[in-house]
């Protein structure tokens, strides 16, 4: 027990980051479930992070209302974004949402209320491990309970066969819109928790590099399942710390592992897991 506590004491930051990354991976996984590649999750996360941080700093709101307001903002922006980009497919949706993310960054750099490039510091550090994993557990439970609902089936059908989905009366456009909005909500949770566990946020935290990272989580974990997304986030958040002993070869090792999984494990890490069962 003492050893466990000591381990937590030395690594709680990493443990918290893993939880936030898992939420982010889930937010992307929702749109992947609908066969959509929406790369706006990190920008939406950033919007929620800023909203919740500003409310905490200027209005001294408690964590929960800050989180809810952050999520509301992310959801609203996601819905507004979904209207024009909803009919885009595949790589076009991906590029449009990347563009959206870049625009959000520029806005965050230019507004007074966000502190521009100097960021916002002194954010209350009140989102502890319990909050982060509690949120993750709730999202996971809801996802699990909803897996056989009409909506979940429509999502799967929209991915596998669009015309069949239309045939049985599924409004594919609406389903896609909802996956973007729900993804925005989860990204919003991740953003608020991130802001409230990082002391300081800056627009650069929510750039394309991070989005790339989340995409890698989902693909390495296995795009077919939410479990894959979470696994990917866990493994790849730990990887850079775990191979710290590689010193100068750390970056190359990271890339080689990524390439090897992609090429030799078509189902991602969750594929190993399934095969083992």
């Amino acid at each position, binding site marked *: 027990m003492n050893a466990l506590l*000591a381990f937590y*004491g*030395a*690594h*709680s*930051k*990493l443990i918290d*980051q893993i939880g936030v990354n898992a939420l982010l991976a889930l937010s992307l996984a929702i749109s992947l479930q609908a066969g959509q590649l929406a790369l706006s999750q990190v920008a939406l996360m950033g919007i929620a992070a800023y909203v919740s941080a500003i409310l905490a700093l200027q209005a001294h709101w408690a964590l929960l209302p800050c989180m809810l307001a952050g999520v509301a903002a992310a959801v609203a922006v996601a819905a507004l974004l979904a209207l024009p980009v909803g009919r885009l497919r595949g790589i076009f949706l991906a590029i449009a949402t990347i563009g959206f993310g870049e625009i959000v*960054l520029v806005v965050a*750099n*230019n507004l007074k209320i966000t502190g*521009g*490039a*100097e*960021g916002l*510091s002194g954010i209350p*550090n009140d989102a502890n491990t319990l909050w982060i994993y509690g949120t993750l557990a709730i999202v996971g439970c809801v996802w699990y309970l909803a897996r056989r609902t009409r909506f979940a089936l429509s999502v799967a059908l929209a991915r596998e066969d669009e015309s069949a989905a239309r045939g049985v009366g599924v409004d594919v456009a609406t389903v896609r819109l909802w996956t973007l909005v729900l993804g925005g909500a989860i990204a919003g949770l991740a953003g608020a928790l991130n802001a409230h566990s*990082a*002391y*300081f946020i*800056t*627009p*650069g*935290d929510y750039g394309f590099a991070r989005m790339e990272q989340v995409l890698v989580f989902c693909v390495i974990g296995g795009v077919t399942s939410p479990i894959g997304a979470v696994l990917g986030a866990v493994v790849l*958040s730990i990887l*850079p*710390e775990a191979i*710290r002993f590689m*010193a100068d070869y*750390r*970056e190359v090792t990271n890339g080689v592992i990524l390439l090897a999984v992609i090429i030799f494990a078509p189902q991602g890490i969750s594929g190993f897991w399934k095969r083992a069962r």
Partner: protein
Amino acid sequence: MRHLTLTSIALCASVALILPATAATTKGPAAGKSVKIGVVADVTGGAGVYGTPQKNAYELASDDIKSGLIDAGGANVTFSVMDAASDGAQVANIVQGFTKDGTALMLGPTLSGEAKKADPIAVAANLPVLGTSTTAPGITTLGSCVYRNALSEEQVIPTTVKRTLAKWHYKKAAIIFGDDNAFTKTDGDVFAAELQASKVEVVATETYHQKDVDFQAQLTRIKDKKPDVLVVGALFPEGTKIIAQAVKLGLNVKMMGGNGLNSSQMYDVAGPGSAGVVVGAAWSIAGKYTGNASFVARYTKKFGTPPDQFAAQAYAAAQVVAALTKSGATTPKEMCDGMKSLPVAQTVLGPINFEPNRDVKSAPVILEVVKGGFTYFK
């Protein structure tokens, strides 16, 4: 100037060869005790250009403490340099590790934004911090034991403006700065405030983004406003290109900038047009302080490139650490108290100690670019 620098390097290299033999390590109250110093630096990733010289400087300082060239009072000081890969999350993880592994003092991180994320973690665990390159406003207010030996832009720029104004008598200034980076944004903001306070009209303010390479559109616009002086709020990679492109476009005005431009390679990289550019900085490669020339010579010999300000400030931090252990400090609390009451320490930055607000007390140097390096701006 180049000639001068080379002679002094050669001279000091020979001094350096003699010194280790003559330097005697004193036996202080901490003699024989192990002191672990945690260094967090961006050796790789986007800020690797700044973190790598820091890592090099600690390697050199480590050798120098072993050889007795830096007197640490006989304490067994180790610098544990951890690469944060320019990733804020890794910085946080590393610093948390330092709070649990017996580290007595944390040096770093490389960037101010990282400090705002990581220093509170150290503060919560009563681990003292000494920043060597975190120049943004408000860093030392993060905790009662967060110090820095880096002169902030707010400390340097007023002197730069005052000295250049006295010599150049300009009326109209233009500013170009990076608006997506805390360091360059501070540069732009502080220069603008200082110029306005000095009754200089700012006729143009242009911005760019980090890693941009083409500044001609902004500079063409600035040229159109006919300023007398151009303020370059930039780090070295962007700064050299801004200066070279301004010269190319025929923007024949005086130019000045801050710490970010302090590299002895300015003239070689930005071209002959950069001669006369004024740089307000915290350290000069030709500084006449005790041990500076020897540091420059030995660093150049060991790593193949001359040290920059990032290296000098890191090396100076190691000298401060040695001064602390020499006076007997080995625990986090003793390190913190030691910095509070630090008598003047002799470093490659000159003699330094700390203000009550934990900023460094040291004089800025105002330099002018000449062929082969810098000379003092007079």
